[in-house]
Structure formats: structure tokens, C-alpha cells
């Protein structure tokens, strides 16, 4: 299964190597890894998504803590956290004269998926989309099945943040970790998008 860890680590040279080296030693494949600044200058925040057996989570956390540069480790599931990814997708789309319908269709698709057109070139256009991994995969699959030629895809990998403490505690008290999204009324609009693909990113 996929595990999502949020690690707060020292903002120093070589920290990424130490984290990556640990996963290499444990022979665990990192599905995605994002690193960035945090509200504190001396700490970086990593969201690590990895494929490992369910019972491996304890050992991964315990091993992460053994690294001197790790300050905090949290493992989150989809219900407990907002997990987002950003994707840039370049799609082949000829000049309007030759394939007007195709471009219009792309704009429509982008609209439905709440993706934005961020670059328009004579032979291609670029879409930017933020959302859960499954929604990005949804857009990619619709594009592929509609016979668009995807020229390039760049994805950031998942970033995660635990939901507000109070609501999270409520969630746990309800014991509904996996179906927890319904407990949060003010959902972002794109959360409610119809999607034919199972959500595997939790």
C-alpha cells in the first residue's frame, strides 16, 4: 500500500541524501517526494509517499526518527489530511485553422477538471492542474482516451498537511478515517468533481 509521511527535517545540506539513503537501505521505492520551506527557517518539510507493506509503517517512522536531522514524522491517511499535487501537462494541439474543434474541446476539458491553460503555442498548449493524484490521473486518462497526444507531463508529487486539529480529533473519535471527507463541509469545489477512477492515493 501507499504510505504518506510528513517529515520535518533540518534545513541543512545533505539532508535529502540521508532521507533517500534510508529508503534505499530499506529497499522501499519512493513514489513521490516533495521538499520545501516551512513556517520556520531552520526546518524543511518533506512529504514522502512510498509503496510498502501495511505493517512497514512503524519501522519506517522509527527509522526516520533515528536520523539526527529528523525533528518530527507524521503518517497521514487521506481522510486526515489534505493531499495535493500539481501537474503541468503539454498537449499537442495544432493551429486553430487546422484543428479548431480539438482546441475548443481541450479548453472544455480543462474547464471541467478545473485545470488552467497556462501556455498556448502554435503546436501545443499547456495545462496546469492542482488536485489529488487521482484527479490528475483522471485528466491524463481522459486526454489519452480522447486521442490527444500528450507531449510532456511534469508532476510535483504529493504534498500533505494534516487537517485542523479539532476536526481531525472529531474524525478519529468517529472512527471514520477513510470516509472522512464528508465530515468537512467547506470542501474545495474540485473535490466534488465526478471521477470514474478509484482513489488510490490515500
Amino acid at each position, binding site marked *: 500500500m501507499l504510505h504518506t509521511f510528513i517529515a520535518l527535517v533540518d534545513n541543512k545540506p*545533505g539532508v535529502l*541524501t*540521508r532521507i533517500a*539513503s534510508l529508503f534505499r*537501505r530499506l529497499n522501499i521505492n519512493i513514489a513521490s517526494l516533495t521538499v520545501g520551506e516551512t513556517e520556520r527557517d531552520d526546518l524543511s518539510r518533506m512529504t514522502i509517499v512510498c509503496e510498502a507493506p501495511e*505493517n512497514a509503517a*512503524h*519501522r519506517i*517512522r*522509527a*527509522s526516520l*526518527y*533515528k*536520523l*539526527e536531522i529528523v525533528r*518530527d*514524522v507524521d503518517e497521514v491517511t487521506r481522510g486526515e489530511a489534505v493531499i495535493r499535487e500539481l501537474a503541468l501537462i503539454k498537449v499537442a494541439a495544432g493551429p486553430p485553422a487546422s484543428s479548431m474543434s480539438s482546441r475548443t474541446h481541450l479548453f472544455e476539458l480543462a474547464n471541467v477538471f478545473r485545470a488552467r491553460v497556462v501556455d498556448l503555442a502554435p503546436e501545443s498548449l499547456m495545462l496546469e492542474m492542482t488536485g489529488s493524484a487521482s484527479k490528475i490521473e483522471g485528466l491524463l486518462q481522459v486526454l489519452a482516451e480522447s486521442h490527444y497526444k500528450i507531449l510532456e507531463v511534469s508532476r510535483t508529487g504529493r504534498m500533505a498537511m494534516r487537517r485542523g486539529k479539532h476536526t481531525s480529533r472529531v474524525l478519529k473519535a468517529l472512527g471514520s478515517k477513510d470516509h472522512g471527507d464528508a465530515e468537512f463541509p467547506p470542501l474545495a469545489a474540485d473535490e466534488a468533481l465526478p471521477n470514474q477512477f478509484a482513489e488510490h492515493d490515500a
Partner: protein
Amino acid sequence: MPKATKTNPNNAPTLTGAEILWATLVGEGVSTVFGYPGGAILPAYDALRKFPIHHVLVRHEQGAAHMADGYARASGKTGVCVATSGPGATNLVTGLATAMIDSIPVVAITGQVSSKVLGSDAFQEIDITGITLPITKHNFVATRAEDIAPMIREAFQIAQSGRPGPVLVDITKDAQQGSCVYDFEAVAPAPYRPHPMLRAETPEMVKAIELMRASTRPVILAGHGIIQSGAEREVIAFAERHNIPIATTLLGLGGIPASHPLSLGMMGMHGESWVNNAIQQSDLLLAFGMRFDDRVTGNLATYAPNAKKIHVEIDPSEINKNVKVDVALIGDLKEVLTTIAKILDERGEPRGVDVTKQWRDEIRAMKGDASVRDIINLPDNGHLYAAHVINDIWQEAKAAGRLDSTIIATDVGQHQMWEAQYFKHEATRTLITSGGLGTMGFALPAAIGAKIACPEKDVWVIAGDGGFQMTAAELSTIVQEGIHINIAVINNGFLGMVRQWQEAFYDKNYACSPILSPDFVILAGAHGIPGANVTKRAEVLPTVTKARTADTAFLINFAVEKEDGVYPMIAPGAALHEMVRRPNPLIETAED
């Protein structure tokens, strides 16, 4: 713990980085370092004479790392080794890996090329922090004089705290040459952060106590942790209070006196049959500071099938790694056992109720068919067995009343297992051996480190003819240091354990396991170390006494039976009780 310098914090002196290095080491309580100079560490060596530190010049940096390791194992203090950049640093690698896997506190100092040329493939430049990433607990690069003191102090804290381990500090040449204000107290590391997943809480302990109460066939598995935690007395008190027999791992030997009535001996691949059988038939295993290594569990699927398991361990990542446990008490063993005893006292638990008597009688009955003892009872038939030699070294130390003051450093292989079987350790920190990594060549340098840590003790090297040749250059270090170490080379003309596996699992195809050796007595003599050849059993005891009472180091070459095996043995992947017994105590070789 660090001693404070008398420096006035408002008027701290300005020192060079090289001086700061030694001053900080002195501040951390270091009196001896093991090292080898070279270009990138020369500024540090230039400043060494100003400080009360004894430097042991090694013959190869691997020796320096093993000596620091042996020093730490014998004394419980942190060992320090020093090397230059490039090849000096890479030569430390095997020693650091040995210390890492056996959790030994070692601080390694390496020189590095100047920070201005870092990453340019300068002469003797190597990325040693990259290389040692997986074999150190942590490592540092100091590129400015200001970095040195805080990094060294943090290195000591990391090396000694929690589950100990080696830490490397790489110091560039310009950092050594630069200077800055030095204030030992001002650069104290932030307070030690215990691993956040430690959770030896009362409810867990109560669960453990309940499991103990339900048990009539318990066994304590005592590992290296009992020595590392300094919990020898607590473990014995615990065992005596509940009448629980104790099996030890290789690295736990010595933690529990072998003669203690509850002590069973070593478990695992070459453990005695009754120890492994007791574990297999137990209904409760209390694992104290051990990590269920594959060498002690055998096949995990059939390991102690009817036993509940309580794991007391300081490293949370070891819990449920190999063996699924029922209760995990994650914390320092000594503290956990002290707390459990307190809970038991508060609850007014009955003392002296002996529910395990029948169980202990059963184990005693199993001792009756101990295959490992066969060789001791063998009459002198003209053959010299390694087991005899080791048993006689033990008998000799015992007769001289030196058993508690005799440290044995072993190499790796057959002789190591025979040592574990036939030398009955009575005192803690008297066996120094590479358990996890199995590093051949470890014994001689580790013994030098141990002797320097404990000059009042008798130190024996027990090494095979193969491993001894890996680091034999350190004989010269012994002479230069003028120390008295006794060396027993168990010489069977083979890489013995390799040969035994080839015999058992590779149709006796002895590929590359016969090994030619020099005349070790002449080799020792060339270094100015006296020695003797022993070929008969009757010569063993008098020669051992001669070595022990000599004024200088002494080497004995024991020409033992060539194709002897270590038994009992559990084949890799077999269950712990499926041991292979000694086929025939009389082993005739082709020459007979």
C-alpha cells in the same frame, strides 16, 4: 561526561581549529586516540603535542577504527580514531561498519582537503561523509574553525546516547588552520532528544507482568543491550526474583556470569543444544536488549512457536522487525527493569514463589546430551583440538584467579564460536568480538584498544590463521606501545568456517579455503615479540601460563586439528531445534 574547562566565558581564548579539535576532545574526557597522520590532518598533528592526549600510531587505519572500537567495548567510554583524507578515511570504513552494526560509541576524525577545493578531485580528496552515510549514526563536515568544537561535542553526544554508534567528523585543512574564539561550555550541544517513539509506560509493563505471571516456562534472552545499558545487575536480580533461566547472544556473553545457576549459555546457530531447545519449548521469551538476528532465531516461521514474547529494546525500529512480539517496552533496559521492579514492589507481588522449578529441571535434564561437551571429555589422543586450547586458556585464567580480569578479543570464524562455547565468561565486557558484521582481522587491533583502556587486565587475542594475517601489521604497534598482549593463533591451515560450510553444503569442495601462513613465531620474533609453537595438548597449559606471566607481548601458534568443525550447528534456514550434532568426536585427518 564532559569536564568544564576553567575558561572565563567572557574572555575565551582564540585558538586555531587544530587546537580546538584537541581541546574539545580533552574536554570530552578523551585521553587516548588511535590514528595515522597524513597531509590533510597535518595541522591537527602539529598541535597535538600541546595537549594531554596519548596518540597510538597504528599501521593501517582499519586498525585505528578497530582499536577505538575495542577501547569502547572494554571501557564503556567512547573510542576515538583519527585519519587523514582520502585513503586514510576510506581505510576506516570496515572499522566504522563493525562499530555501527554492534552499536559501539566511536568518534572518527578525518582530515579533508581545503574547503576551497572541495569537490574538485583534489589530491587525496574523497567524499567520506557520503561513503560513511549508512555506516555511521551521523556524520559532519567542518569547513570553518568555528564548526569544530560544536560538531565534536555533538558527535560525542550522538555516539553515546540512545542506541550508541559511530560518528564521523570530517575537518577541512583550512578549518584546522583557521582560528576563532574557543569556549567549551558555550558550544554544548542542545539537550539530548530521546527517540520520540520510546514508550515503556506502566500499562505496557503491567501487560508484561501479566504475561510473566501466566508463564511457567519462561526464558530471558539477554543481548548486547544488557551490557550497553549497564543493566547486568538488574537483569540478574530480575531473573533471580522470578527464577527465569537466561540465554545470551554472542554479544551478551559476559553480561551474565557463566557460572550463575540461571545462566544457560549462548543461543543460536552454534549455541548449545539445551539452550536452543529451551527457547523452542518456552512459553514466554523475555528479549532484553537483543534484536532477534537471523543467527539466533534460525527459521523465523518455526521460532519458539508456543512462546509469548516481551521485547525490551531502546531502538523502536527493532520492534517487530524479525519476530512479532506481544509486548514491546521501548526504552533503556536498566530503567525499564527498575520500573518493573518498583511496580512489583508496590503491588506486593509474592517473592520467592518458584513456579519454574519443573521447567528448570527439564532444561537441566536436556543438558545431559550436550554434544558440545563431548570434546572436553575426550581423553588426550594425541590430537590438539581448538576447543582444548580455548578451554585451557579459560582453565589457566581461572586457576590464576584472573578470570574477571581477562579480556578475550576474538576474530571471526570457527575459533570465535569455540571461544564462545568453551571460555566461560564471568565478568561483563570481557569478550570483545565482531558479532553483527563478522569482521575478520578485528581481534588484534581490538585487543590493543582494550589493553590501552584496561592496562591492569590480561588481554588475549584469539584469532585464526586467516584473520590474523589480515591485520598482523599491528604487531608492530604493540611493540611501539610497549604493551603486553597475549596472542593465540588457532592455526588449522584453513579458513576454517568457510571450509566447514564447504564440507556441509558444498560437497567438500574446498575452493580457496586452504591458506598458507608464515611461521607466526618467527613473524612475531621479527617484531621483537617472543613466541612458541604448541602442537600437543600437554604443552597448552604451561605455554599459556608462560605467555600470561611474560613481561612483554607473547604469541602462541597452536597447530590444531585441520578439519575440525563447530558443533552443534543449525543450518541456515533450519529451525532452532534442528541442530546438526558432532558427527564423531574423533576426527582423523589424512595425515594420521
